[in-house]
């Protein structure tokens, strides 16, 4: 077998494995999420199918595959079918670039599907393409609620993409590379990035909740206002594909947060004293970190109610974006003028920023939570916010 063919086949195999892994995780995420939500609401959650409800994902899969696949008469057939494929395709592709272990650690192969110099940029590019799935799905359904849902969700995702990208700039300036390997390697030497970029991490966390359409930012699916948003006219497997895309995006966001701010696939160094080389084991550390963030997603969903749409937009534009810019400026200024000062000072500054934000959280709330009732006699004009 020629060399390039072997490489191609191995890459393909790894891609298939990643896809299978992601989809299995998605299936069991739905179960775990429902169980955890149930327990947090003092009920057991789904426990009927199989022992402890463990076969529930299989039942759900069978149901969504064999359900009638409806197509609305007014739908644009091509785009209507294309939209869920775009959504899930982009979501799955985005995950492949994340390294899960040191080079050559997975049976002699590299534990990633593709490795780009522009790792984080490529990932942002792919996730930004994910907007199309939602947007086109809403438009192609040919009915009113989906188009409203599609419009507001794409507006939301575009708005928070900016804050998301900007909140990473400080990190990129410190590390000086956009490749995931470089970022993980830097953190292995200098400690996890969360220490130096806590403000950036908080902003990134908030933006990634908005980007993955999770509570408290799950406006696209606000049942009370727009039925199910862009999902309204979808059924059966196409609906399941959208759902998959949401969960895969969630997994990817968790993996990105672990990689960028929590040391990626490397475990904590002090454990090496107990078991030599444990911090270099592939997969395990990344999976643990992803699991933590997935739990955070579920936990927040169990706790927080949904924001109103105008609050969401104001929050994104008036708080997250300026703060991300401020974080960028702060980091840039520090790097330019630090002289021989250590990075820990930046960490203290960043932490002070987060604390100030927490203390001032009631004051800044007026930024996005102003009462929209105007005094009588003031003319209400069309448009606005």
């Amino acid at each position, binding site marked *: 077998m020629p060399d390039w063919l072997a490489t191609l086949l191995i890459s393909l195999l790894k891609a298939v494995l990643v896809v299978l892994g992601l989809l299995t995780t998605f299936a069991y995420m739905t179960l775990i999420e429902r169980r955890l939500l*149930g327990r*947090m609401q*003092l*009920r*057991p959650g789904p426990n009927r199918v199989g022992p402890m409800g463990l076969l529930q994902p299989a039942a759900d899969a069978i149901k969504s595959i064999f359900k009638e696949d409806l197509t609305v008469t007014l739908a644009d057939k091509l785009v209507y079918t294309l939209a869920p494929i775009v959504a899930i395709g982009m979501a799955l592709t985005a995950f492949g670039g994340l390294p899960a272990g040191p080079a050559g650690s997975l049976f002699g192969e590299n534990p990633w599907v593709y490795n780009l110099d522009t790792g984080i940029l490529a990932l942002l590019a792919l996730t930004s393409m994910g907007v199309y799935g939602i947007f086109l799905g809403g438009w192609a359904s040919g009915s009113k609620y989906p188009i409203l849902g599609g419009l507001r969700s794409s507006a939301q995702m575009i708005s928070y993409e900016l804050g998301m990208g900007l909140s990473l700039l400080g990190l990129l300036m410190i590390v000086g590379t956009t490749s995931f390997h470089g970022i993980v390697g830097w953190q292995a030497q200098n400690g996890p990035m969360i220490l130096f970029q806590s403000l950036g991490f908080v902003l990134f966390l908030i933006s990634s909740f908005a980007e993955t359409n999770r509570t408290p930012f799950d406006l696209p699916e606000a049942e009370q206002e727009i039925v199910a948003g862009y999902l309204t006219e979808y059924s059966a497997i196409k609906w399941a594909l959208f759902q998959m895309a949401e969960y895969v995006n969630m997994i990817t966001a968790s993996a990105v947060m672990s990689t960028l701010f929590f040391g990626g696939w490397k475990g904590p160094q002090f454990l090496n004293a107990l078991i030599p080389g444990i911090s270099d084991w592939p997969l395990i550390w990344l999976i643990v970190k992803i699991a933590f963030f997935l739990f955070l997603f579920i*936990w927040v969903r169990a*706790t927080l109610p949904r924001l109103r749409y105008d609050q969401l937009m104001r929050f994104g534009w008036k708080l997250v974006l300026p703060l991300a810019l401020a974080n960028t400026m702060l980091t840039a200024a520090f790097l330019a003028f630090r002289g021989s000062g250590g990075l820990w000072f930046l960490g203290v500054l960043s932490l002070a920023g987060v604390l100030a934000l*927490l203390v001032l*959280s*009631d004051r800044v709330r007026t930024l996005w939570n102003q009462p929209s009732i105007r005094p009588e006699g003031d003319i209400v004009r069309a448009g606005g916010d």
Partner: protein
Amino acid sequence: MGVLEIAKGMGVTLGKLFQKPVTVSYPEQRATLQPRFRGRHILTRHPGTNLEKCIGCSLCAAACPAYAIYVEAAENDPAAPVSPGERYAKVYEINMLRCIFCGMCEEACPTGAVVLGNEFEMADYRSRDFVYAKEDMLVGVTGSIPQRREATRLGKPVRLGFQLDGGQPRAELEGVKYP
């Protein structure tokens, strides 16, 4: 501090995660009902003489807002009376599909004959099976029509899917025993 409240809320949900769920796995475990729960009707008897309390006056049928009750009265045979009065209910039927379990029949009854019990598991397949006759509701009959049918088919006693908070049915349900 607005964020503090969010943190408090997160703490509450996390704490609940480790609490025992309040819901029970219903068909396997018995649900707990309050004694005042209004379920399927019971036609009671006088405890000493074992005569039916119902005297066939049809006041329950008149009071019923859903027109679910049908009563046909007949004269008592003095030698073997069914009820202590002059007349008794020859036919006493309640259509459980129409019944809204409001308890007005119980309030209207002058002798306390019809009382709302606690049974609620009455789901069945055919609408004619929802018309409960006297022999389905007289005190001592445990279970709804489908439950008793299922019990005979399997040869097991009727199993009611609930238990009462406090264990005792209320006083009006004379002679009724629930698990």
